[in-house]
């Protein structure tokens, strides 16, 4: 009886320690997010004061959000730009990498490995170093200062990782499943759509999350390739919003922008996290 009692106390202590550490770590990671959200609800003047306490002392205010909303062509234009660019990047990345991954995983063709290594090796080129040629090429194509142009750039930058990811995902699906579907009378596209796609969904989710986060947060390429203020995406807008009157920084507007920008990322990640973890480990252990 007493031994039982002792072991249950020990288990309780262990659980407390385990959960205590977990909660502390979670707080550490959540603190900056919460801080940003709280500051965004301070009135503009208070937001400029030293940051302690982090919560609004003079009552909650949406003044920063109003400032942000009225900036330039209005926040919805920029949010719309960002959303359109991200959605198109996600769609194009998923489509291209799905087909490319399937091809690299399942079909035999000349120079297959050379081609694959070539695609992967483009990760080694710092993208800043090719901005100038990119700018010139886009200008030649008449795509400079267009959202289509910036989507093409983002998809290109995402492609090596996405293709690699999808090839691993397809490699992890036993070949016999595909053989069985082919014997069952499925065409190549039916096999891909009905059988393979559901099985590589974790990979697709991972590719989608990465493409979304990368294009949603990307700043440098957008700053350089988009010159018309109406075409700005949110990160570029944030840089513009930052500068308040007389060179001061409007922290309230910045934090409200940050809050606005991280909301979709959080939502998407929470929605797809189950697949995301499985996708990253796919192909690691067969």
């Amino acid at each position: 009886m007493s031994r039982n009692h002792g072991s249950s106390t020990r288990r309780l202590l262990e659980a407390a320690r385990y959960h205590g550490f977990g909660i502390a770590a979670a707080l550490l990671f959540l603190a900056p997010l919460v801080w940003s959200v709280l500051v965004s609800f301070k009135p503009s003047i208070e937001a400029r004061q030293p940051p302690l306490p982090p919560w609004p002392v003079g009552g909650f205010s949406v003044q920063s959000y109003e400032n942000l909303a009225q900036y330039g062509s209005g926040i919805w234009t920029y949010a719309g730009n960002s959303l359109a660019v991200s959605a198109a990047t996600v769609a194009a990345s998923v489509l291209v990498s799905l087909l490319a991954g399937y091809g690299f995983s399942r079909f035999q063709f000349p120079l297959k490995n050379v081609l694959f290594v070539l695609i992967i090796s483009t990760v080694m080129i710092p993208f800043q170093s090719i901005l100038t040629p990119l700018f010139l090429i886009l200008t030649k194509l008449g795509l400079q200062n267009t959202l289509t142009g910036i989507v093409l750039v983002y998809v290109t930058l995402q492609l090596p990782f996405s293709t690699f990811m999808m090839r691993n995902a397809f490699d992890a699906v036993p070949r016999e499943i595909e053989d069985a579907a082919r014997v069952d009378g499925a065409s190549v596209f039916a096999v891909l759509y009905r059988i393979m796609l559901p099985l590589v969904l974790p990979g697709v989710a991972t590719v989608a999350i990465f493409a979304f986060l990368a294009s949603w947060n990307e700043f440098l390429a957008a700053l350089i390739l988009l010159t018309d203020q109406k075409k700005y995406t949110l990160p570029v807008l944030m840089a513009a919003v930052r500068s308040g009157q007389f060179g001061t920084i409007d922290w309230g507007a910045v934090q409200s922008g940050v809050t606005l920008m991280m909301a979709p990322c959080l939502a998407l990640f929470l929605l797809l996290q189950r697949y995301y973890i499985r996708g990253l480990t796919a192909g690691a252990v067969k």
Partner: protein
Amino acid sequence: MMGAAQEKAKIELRDVCKTFGSVDVIHSLDLTIEGGEFVVFVGPSGCGKSTLLRMIAGLEDVSSGDIFIAGRDVTDLDPSKRGIAMVFQSYALYPHMSVRQNLAFGLEMAKTPADEIARQVNAAAEILKIGPLLDRRPGQLSGGQRQRVAIGRAIVRKPLAFLFDEPLSNLDAELRVSMRIEISRLHRELGNTMIYVTHDQTEAMTLADRIVVLRDGRIEQVGTPRQVYEDPNNLFVAGFIGSPRMNIVDAVCLAGDRIGVADAVIPLPRPGPAAAPGEAVKLGIRPEHLRLGAPKESALRAHVDFSEYLGSTRYLYCNLQSGESITVEQRDGTDFLSGEEVWLNCDAECLRVFSPSGERLRTGRPERTATA
């Protein structure tokens, strides 16, 4: 075509070759499988039996030659258009679909009406007794149940022929026996042409109408289980079929249809094999054909190395005077000590003579076919 329920499709391979790069996997192979026949491809691993099956299924390209199914040249046809169904070693069920969806997939691909699909799926589930499992996912099934589903997926489509690629190798011994009987029953009920690949000779012997013994991409022998067991064409087939293996010992042909083995002289059936007196040959004797008896000139003297007691039988592993080892199957329940001397007799009809290169040297008259 696929709707033709009980059509018994003849399958013909004509001069079929397969090369992977510079490696020849299948060498110019001819084979005709009659409609409704149950044929088993058997051979050691790497002999090309699975490759051959996949070529018939259309999952591997044919390097040269032609394949006909039900009189139609399918050599360049997609697997989906060949009207065959295949059961894989790893079951290869679609993990994201329920059992019902797994069974229905092939019919959906053939654009069968929904009510017809439901009817077929239920009928197949009835035959294989998997009715209660229809709404489960493959991950929730045991190995035996998965294999039933895999077979069910093959039978719902009413194919021209069934191809089985080592379907029982992932099951435990007991389940393997019961599934083997079930596959046999299925063949009796459906009557379709079936091709079955295995390296397990028990499966081959029990299931097959005809066995195709393969080695290194070549057919060594085609025949009924009895033919390949009792009348092997060469040393390879003799050694591969049968467990424990056929004893192969060096021997010399002597005048008067006799053969010298170690220090014994054993009579051969008359007329003897096509070998000149004095010619070195290989002699094959099945372990169950060796009997223990009294010392005499025609008996092989051997010493027991060790003996294995298996209940109904006992295997004696003996050494001949020449140092060659020989296995004896013994059924009278006597115990033997290691080192004990035994004299082994064998009927002339049970001896199989091979040339040193492994070819069978047949006698002029039919040999005894029933096991002693």
